[in-house]
Every structure is written in C-alpha cells, then in structure tokens.
C-alpha cells in the first residue's frame, strides 16, 4: 500500500516536473535573449587585409578581439599579450611597430586611430599634413608585407575614442592597468573567424563605339582603345577608395567616352575609327583582368586595334604628364602618338614626357597596363603622373589616397589631352591648331560630371575579391557606358592562382568600461557588513523598542516569546 502511494507520489512529481520543463526552457530562452550588448561606445572599425600569395600568409590573421585596452605609455616590460594597443597615427613610431612585428612579440591586438580627414567622404577643412600621409604610407607598406598573428584594425578618431585614450594613458602612466574601478576599458569585437573567399571574380566592362564606314569600303575599320583599371587594393579593404589610383583614370575614361559619344552620335561627325572603351579589373594583381580581356577579344578585333591608351593616376599633377611605353621611342607608331600628345600639350600649356621601360618576359611582374597589350603585340602607352612604375600591390588605393588630394583640374587637363589628340588623329588634323573640345563650346569638358563621378568613386571601396557579381558599382559603370556607347559587354572571370583572400573586412568595436574583480569583492564586503550592522541595529532597537513601549503601557496582554 505504502509502495503504491509512494510510486503515485513520484508519478505526480515527475508529471509536475515534466510540465515545468517548457516553462523553464522558456525562461532560459528569455534570459538568453536579453543579450548584454549595452556598450557605452560602439565604433566602426576596418580590418587589415588578410591574404596569401602562393600560400605565404600576409596581413592580419585574426579577427575577433576581447581584451583590455593599453596605450603607448605602458611600463616597460609590461605583458601586452592580453591587451589591445591603441595607436593614434599622430603618435605612431614606425620603428616600434616594426620591432613588435619582426620580433614576433605577442600582442592581443592593434587598433590604429586615423584622423577624421582620412575618412572617405569627409567634407570639411583641415589639410592633412604631408608628414602624416607619408607615415601612413610607410605603415601600410609595413603591415601589408608582414604576417601578423593578431588582429589589426583601423578606426577614425572621434570624441569617445579620444576620451577613452586619454583615460587609458593616464592609468597606464600610473602603472595601473584596469585594476581601478573606472580605469579599465575592454575592447570587444565579436565576429566569426575569417574564411577564404571561395572564387573571387574580376569583372571587365567594355563599351564599343563603332565608326562610320565610307560607302563601298568593306575593310575593317581601325580601332583605338582607351583603357583604365577601376579596382583598388589597400591595407584596409573597406577603406580602399583609391581616389587617384585609379578613380581619376576611370573618371577621365568616362568623360572621354561622353565627349566622343556626342561627336559620334551625329553621322556627319562620326570618325573613321572605332572606339573601344574598357574598364578592367584585377589591376593591382599584375593587370590580370586586362590580360584576360585581351585574350577574350576576337583575333580580328585585336589586330584592328591601332593603338591603346591606358589611363593610370591622372588626378594630382601640375605641369608634367608622362607617357610610358614599352616599345622603343624610335618606333614610328610611338613617335606618332607622342607627337600628337606633345602638340596638344603645348597648346594647352603643359608638358608631356616619354618614358621607355623594356618588358622583361621572364619576370611575371607587369608594371604598367600597356605591357599586357605589348605582350600581345598591340601598340599601347600609359598616360600617368607617376614617374616610376608602382611595386606589386602598391599605389593601388592606399589609405592616404583620399579625395582631398585629387584635383579636378588635373583630370580635366588629362581628359583634354587624350580627347584632343585622339580627335586630331581620327579626323586627320594632326599638327593643326584646332581645338575640338574647346571650353564654352558644346563639346567642352564637363567639370561637374568629372567632380560628381570623382566624389562618388571616392566613397566606394573597390577591392576586386570583395565585389560581388552584381555589385552596384559595376552596374553603375555598365549603365554609364551603355549611355555613351553602342554595345556594352561584361566579362566575368575568376581571379587566378597565386592570390587568396579572406573575408571579414568591417566590424563594430564595443568599448566597455569595466571594474575589476577586486572592486566586486570589496563591494560585497561592504554590503555584507552593512547588512549585518542593519540586522544588529534592528534587533537592538525593535526588541528594545518593544520593551520601551511596554514600560509606558500596562503589563502586556500577551507573553513575548523568548528568542
């Protein structure tokens, strides 16, 4: 009998527990949903690029961060392997960073604070000193070519980070690191580990503007190509806007396309040359996109190309523009092209110089875009302000390449140079003193067009592996070329071989002000003693008070229980 009762009781109890489970589960879910994301400050941060060249790792290999903040004023010999070092650019010491990286000292993380003037889309005064730009360029070079085993992030200074840094410095100088109640800051970036980007695509956009064929002429018209590569590469891919390299080239190409489309729209002024405009990708990676695009062209089309003009960085020059070639200057075609340029330049009031650099077939490095044409026996030249060819992965849109240092006037001069010389060649007016695209005419170079495209490109990061197939930028460029040319086609290839990229380029940094465990313990001690004091006080007073009251009253009607 007792057993039955017991089992029944147990049954009831288990049923009760069973019914409790969903309630408990719901409570747990509710509790977990109330996530602890109430940081005092949240800052946008941009990660250093992570990439491999033929398997050799470069860049920052980690992305998530959960450490205390430290500044440069830390005591010597302090262990920073569980701290994030905050370095404002203004106080950066390149040698220090270099030491840290080369000696492989362990660091929890690195946060580099850049002045607001380097932010893409920054409108406002304040010329950045050249010293800072040079320092930034050096830092980028160092970081890009090192294998860094901790997360490196870039952020822009604002009031909150300034306040935090001042606090951290003060505490570090005093030798306390996050032990005082309001001295410690914890920086948390919670993102998943970076993954390889499976098959990065490069997208080439070409626009074809056919010339007019004379009646009865069945030969293929010659073609002139104008090419610019539009993608960038920099230390922080989410900030690589490359205003000069090669935003200026893209803008110049679009403006030239617009001018010629106006000319070619009227059959009477259509020239006897076809025009081919190409916006290529894969520029920083030895102009891989250009190579693939050329190989994809029909053989006849390729052979019909008279010559190609490549535009690379035409945004910040004053008096001299350079024309780089790989064929020797004595070559007839080169002479012709260069004479055309120098005549126009003379008229416009600046100088062009010819620079010759031989192609080294055994070296896989492609220094200029025109070399890809030359390797396929197409005459080509690059118009650029750069004196020497950039190294691999350099001058392709670094952090210091911002809108402020690009001059629309330089681009406009470049556009005039290219457009005029092309037009004189097409219409056979070489050497004549004519200005086809004169100012204040209907064919004048449109300053507002140049400015608006330049502004827009200076706010769009364009690192090729991180651009999706239907990226708005690519669609916009395609649409623009569609407006100006007859036929537009897009070619999408995958980026070859030796480069591998990893994702996770942008994150949110949470800055928490934390108190140490000793503070908690102290508080617990204080509260414990407070409660004990309260208890004893109440016992004394109330039992005493009762006694006190009973004195003023007649003998109490009930007996007090003795504790």
């Amino acid at each position: 009998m007792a057993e039955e009762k017991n089992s029944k009781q147990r049954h009831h109890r288990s049923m009760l527990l069973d019914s409790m489970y969903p309630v408990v589960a719901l409570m747990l879910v509710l509790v977990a949903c109330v996530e602890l994301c109430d940081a005092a400050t949240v800052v946008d941060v941009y990660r250093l690029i992570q990439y491999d060249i033929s398997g050799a790792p470069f860049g920052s290999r980690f992305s998530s961060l959960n450490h205390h903040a430290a500044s440069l004023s830390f005591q010597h010999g302090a262990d920073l392997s569980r701290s994030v070092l905050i370095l404002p650019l203004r106080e950066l010491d390149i040698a220090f960073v270099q030491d840290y990286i080369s000696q492989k000292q362990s660091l929890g993380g690195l946060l580099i604070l850049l002045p607001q003037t380097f932010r893409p889309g920054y409108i406002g005064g304040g010329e950045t000193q050249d010293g800072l730009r040079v320092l930034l360029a050096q830092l980028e070079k160092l970081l890009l070519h090192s294998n860094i085993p901790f997360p490196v992030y870039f952020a822009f200074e604002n009031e909150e980070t300034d306040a935090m840094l001042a606090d951290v410095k003060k505490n570090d100088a005093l030798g306390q690191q996050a032990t005082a109640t309001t001295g410690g800051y914890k920086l948390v970036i919670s993102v998943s580990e970076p993954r390889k980007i499976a098959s990065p695509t490069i997208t080439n956009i070409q626009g074809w503007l056919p010339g007019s064929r004379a009646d009865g002429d069945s030969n293929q018209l010659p073609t002139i190509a104008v090419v610019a590569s539009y993608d960038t590469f920099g230390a922080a891919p989410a900030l690589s806007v490359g205003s000069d390299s090669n935003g200026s080239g893209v803008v110049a190409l679009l403006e030239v396309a617009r001018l010629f489309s106006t000319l070619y729209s009227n059959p009477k002024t259509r020239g006897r040359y076809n025009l081919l405009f190409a916006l290529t990708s894969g520029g920083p990676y030895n102009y891989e996109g250009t190579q693939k695009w050329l190989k994809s062209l029909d053989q006849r089309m390729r052979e019909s190309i008279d010559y190609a003009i490549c535009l690379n960085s035409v945004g910040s020059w004053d008096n001299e523009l350079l024309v780089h070639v790989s064929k020797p200057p004595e070559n007839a075609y080169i002479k012709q092209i260069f004479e055309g340029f120098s005549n126009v330049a003379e008229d416009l009031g600046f100088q062009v110089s010819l620079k010759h650099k031989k192609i080294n077939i055994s070296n896989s490095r492609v220094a200029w875009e025109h070399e890809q044409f030359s390797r396929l026996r197409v005459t080509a030249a690059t118009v650029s302000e750069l004196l020497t060819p950039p190294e691999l992965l350099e001058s392709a849109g670094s952090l210091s390449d911002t809108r402020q240092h690009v001059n629309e006037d330089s681009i406009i001069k470049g556009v005039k140079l290219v457009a005029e010389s092309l037009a004189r060649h097409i219409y056979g007016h070489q050497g004549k003193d004519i200005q086809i695209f004169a100012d204040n005419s209907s064919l004048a170079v449109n300053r507002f067009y140049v400015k608006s495209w330049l502004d827009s490109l200076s706010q769009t990061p364009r690192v090729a592996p991180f651009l999706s197939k239907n990226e708005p930028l690519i669609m916009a460029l395609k649409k623009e070329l569609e407006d100006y040319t007859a036929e537009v086609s897009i070619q999408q290839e995958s980026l070859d071989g030796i480069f591998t990229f990893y994702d996770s380029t942008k994150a949110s940094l949470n800055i928490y002000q934390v108190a140490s465990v000793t503070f908690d313990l102290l508080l617990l001690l204080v509260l414990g003693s407070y409660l004990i004091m309260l208890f004893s006080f109440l016992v004394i007073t109330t039992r005493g008070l009762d006694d006190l009251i009973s004195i003023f009253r007649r003998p109490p009607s009930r007996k007090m229980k003795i504790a």
Partner: protein
Amino acid sequence: MTLFHFFNCAILTFGPHAVYYSATPLSEYDTLGTSVKAAVVYLATALVKLVCLATFLQVSETEVFDPYQEALKAMIGFIDVAGLYFALAQLTHRNISQNHKFQAVGLGWAFADSVLHRLAPLWVGARGLEFTWDYVLQGLEANANLVFTISLAALGSLMWLRKNKPKTLIPIIYTCAVIIATMPSITSYLRRVMGWHFPKVVGFELMTSLVMAFISCQLFILCQRPSL
C-alpha cells in the same frame, strides 16, 4: 560587470527587506501573510495608478518641469496612500498588534515596490560588461524607500487605526504623512528643476528618510502614551 555585480546590487536592493523581516519580532509572529497581502494590494494600486497616469497625463518630450503635470502626478500619488489605507485598515489580518501590523504592511509594500521597479532594470543592466554606479545607487534608493514606506505605514496606522490621539499631534502627523507621500514629486522636482544628479538625489532621499523615520518613531511613541 557580469553576475557578480548583479548579485551585489541585488543583495543591496532586496537584502534589507529580508534582514528587516528576520531581525524584528515580525519573524517571531509569522507575519508573512500580512506582508504578502500588502504586496498584492501594492500591485493592484500600481495598476490603478498606471491607468490613471496613462489617461490623464501628457507625455512631454523634454525634461521640463511642468507644475500642472507635477501636481497631477502628486494627486495620482495619493492613490498610493489610499492603497496603503486599504491594506492597513480594510484587510483582515491575523491577530497581531498594531505595532507589528504597520511594519509588516510597510515591509510587504516596500518589497513589492522594489521588485516591480528595480528588478527588471537590474537584471537587464547589471549583468552587462559595462560598469556604472547606477545600480548601486538604485539599491540605496530602494533602502531609502523601505524606510519611507515603513514611516508612512506607521503614520497611516496612527491616523486610521488609533482612535484617541493627543490633539496637538494630529496636524504634525498629517503634515509628515503628506511630505512622505509626495516624496516622488519632490525628487523629480529636484532632478529636473534644480538639476541635481542621481547620487545627490539619492543622498538627499537617504537623509530625509532617516529624519522622517525618527520623527514618525517619536510620534508613534508619543501616541502610545495614553493608555488604551
């Protein structure tokens, strides 16, 4: 600050109630039932107050002290007093002395107030990594509130449950009760018009609560003197 800080603030906010219950003779006379009933009455009062506030009050965007709104809030605050009256006078309690009844009712009332107003912010906020003094100050405020509520309950019991009081003391009793009942308005006035920060306001509350407790204690004793 994680769970440790939450635990600290929780014992600061709710500890004194438990200590009060166990330290005073309340625990000996097992007055838990009274406290629970008082807590339930508080819940009902809070609901009624919410409905009234929602109906009659306009929400202003800025933190401007509007005398009319504040007067309205103070009047709605008197619903609190009505609820306390109900808990003290109308509910039937087990046969416990006057002395213990007001304490039990005050305790239950203050505990319900703390739980309703302070538990949720504590749970959501104090467990985060970010450290602020807010929750410690909130706990101190809960303590002050406990003292206020017990004083108010004492004065309430004097007003409604004790039939013969010395005539001279009656106005004092009523003024003290009014002061305590309008404490929320006073603190909001201080915060908005005078621009006092939270720590200062909490300090003021603590001091006033001690002063009020002392006064009401004296009044209570004085009213005990005429023999029943």
